[in-house]
């Protein structure tokens, strides 16, 4: 494939592949966006501005001195729980995933359990999070963590299992210890999966960030979104949605750029 996307076989095929969708801007793509915005403009004339404002009204919100800075401020605060939850999930899921993926016994023991727990929608755990963590920052961090933890874990386990045993055997026959094999063979072989986990995990974490801000005590971006919607100020609400969307796109682009630098040796499928 020309878009330099990375095939991650076996690792929840679609999930990883879905995030894999390279975004090389093309002329047709740009035209398509413009046509889409025009269609939106056209559709907006059919509705009241309170319900569906035209795109220009939404973009006006960003330069509104009463709204733009407030949005940025909320975004900065939102990033605190995003970073904390996502970081915590990575810090636990990476070692745990390698451990489970590399050990035959641990894999067979815990994989069905992990799949079962993964099947529970994280949002359904919100009542528990309220009981344990209250309604504020701690609860939001916990939800971000839960939203991305299992997605990361599942991909890392698949990656750790995917490391070809012949590679590890070569290391062994050169007298490398288990630890050295892990560092020099398993970890590099795992990096493509690590990036897949980062891409999927970051998207889920951003999703968790705004979900948490809406479902617990409304805070930061979620508070602006909720209040704007309640005041029938759809333009402001859509501006928040556009912001979240841009954050998501920026995260994907950032991880992809990093991947290109780190993984230049990796064979592209």
């Amino acid at each position, binding site marked *: 494939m020309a878009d330099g996307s990375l095939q991650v076989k076996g690792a*929840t*095929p*679609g*999930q990883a*592949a*879905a*995030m894999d*969708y390279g*975004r090389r*801007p*093309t002329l*047709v*793509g740009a035209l*398509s*966006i413009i046509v*889409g915005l025009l269609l939106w403009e056209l559709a907006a004339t059919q509705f009241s501005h309170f*319900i569906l404002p035209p795109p220009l009204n939404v973009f006006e919100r960003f330069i509104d001195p009463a709204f733009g800075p407030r949005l940025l401020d909320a975004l900065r605060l939102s990033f605190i729980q995003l970073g904390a939850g996502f970081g915590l999930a990575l810090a636990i899921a990476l070692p745990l995933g390698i451990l489970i993926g590399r050990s035959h*016994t641990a894999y*067979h*023991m*815990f*994989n*069905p*359990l992990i*799949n*079962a727990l993964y*099947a*529970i*929608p*994280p*949002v*359904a*755990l*919100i*009542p*528990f999070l*309220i*009981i*344990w963590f209250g309604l504020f920052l701690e609860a939001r961090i916990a939800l971000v963590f839960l939203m991305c933890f299992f997605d990361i874990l599942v991909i890392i386990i698949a990656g750790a299992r995917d490391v070809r045993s012949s590679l590890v055997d070569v290391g062994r026959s050169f007298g490398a210890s288990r630890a050295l094999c892990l560092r020099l063979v398993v970890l590099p072989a795992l990096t493509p999966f690590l990036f897949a986990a980062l891409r999927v995990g970051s*998207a889920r974490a*951003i*999703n968790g960030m*705004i*979900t948490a801000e*809406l*479902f617990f005590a409304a805070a930061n971006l979620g508070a602006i*979104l909720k209040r*704007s*919607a*309640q005041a029938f100020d*759809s333009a402001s*609400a*859509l501006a*928040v*949605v556009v912001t*979240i*969307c841009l954050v*998501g*796109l920026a995260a*994907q682009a950032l991880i992809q750029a990093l991947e290109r630098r780190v993984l230049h040796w990796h064979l592209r499928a």
Partner: protein
Amino acid sequence: MLNRLRNLLLPCLGIALFLIVWEIAGRKMGDSLFAPLSSVVVQYVELLRDGAMLGELFISLRQMLIGFLAACVVGMPLGIAMGRSRLADAVFRPWVGIFVVTSTAALIPILILILGTGLALRSTVVFLAAVWYIVLTTYNGAKGISPEQIAVGRSFSAGRAQIFWKIILPTLYPYLITGARIGLIHAIRAMVMAEMFVIVGYGGLIHQTGMLVDTSSLLGLLATLMIVSLLANFLLSQWGKTLAPWYEQQRSTQ
């Protein structure tokens, strides 16, 4: 033989370990924080007898299916079109890229303004959460069809329609099933999320039970949700196996 026994025994051991840890943790923390397994089992029988849980579940699932099927009907052809035609790919690619990273939760407050809080809202949320994953999985499959396969069809002078129905579509079966499985996971998540937001149906039941700090019922509700999700996933993958039996064999020999 020994290996098979081990692969059967180890999962049971893992689950047993989990249940024991749950029981001990539950007894330590108490019913108001985290009910132990034993009281959840007792409560679960009560929930089944009461009927509200299963009643709400069926209504919610039926409504979820509307959005999910709509996502399949739109997503699968769109994915195939994008995978087979460069123009369709270029036109829809930026939009799919944008929507797949946009969280559906953020759209709910705006969708409520447009659609109200009824069935239309819930179906739309489910549709929006599931459709992009279905599109992308189908797209990856359609893009991966080797030109040789189609060339074989051409050299047997098959028409465009024949090539589509006899070569492209069967090759895509595993991807369509995988897309449906991933889409369904997201659809169930979105169903619960939308229902918890407007407090109706099964999600509403979870919300209300949480308000009562009744953790044994809450865990029972979560268990049911887990079983439904696993069951749906299992059924779809079984269907995939009968639809494309060659696929598993291919993968295991690779």
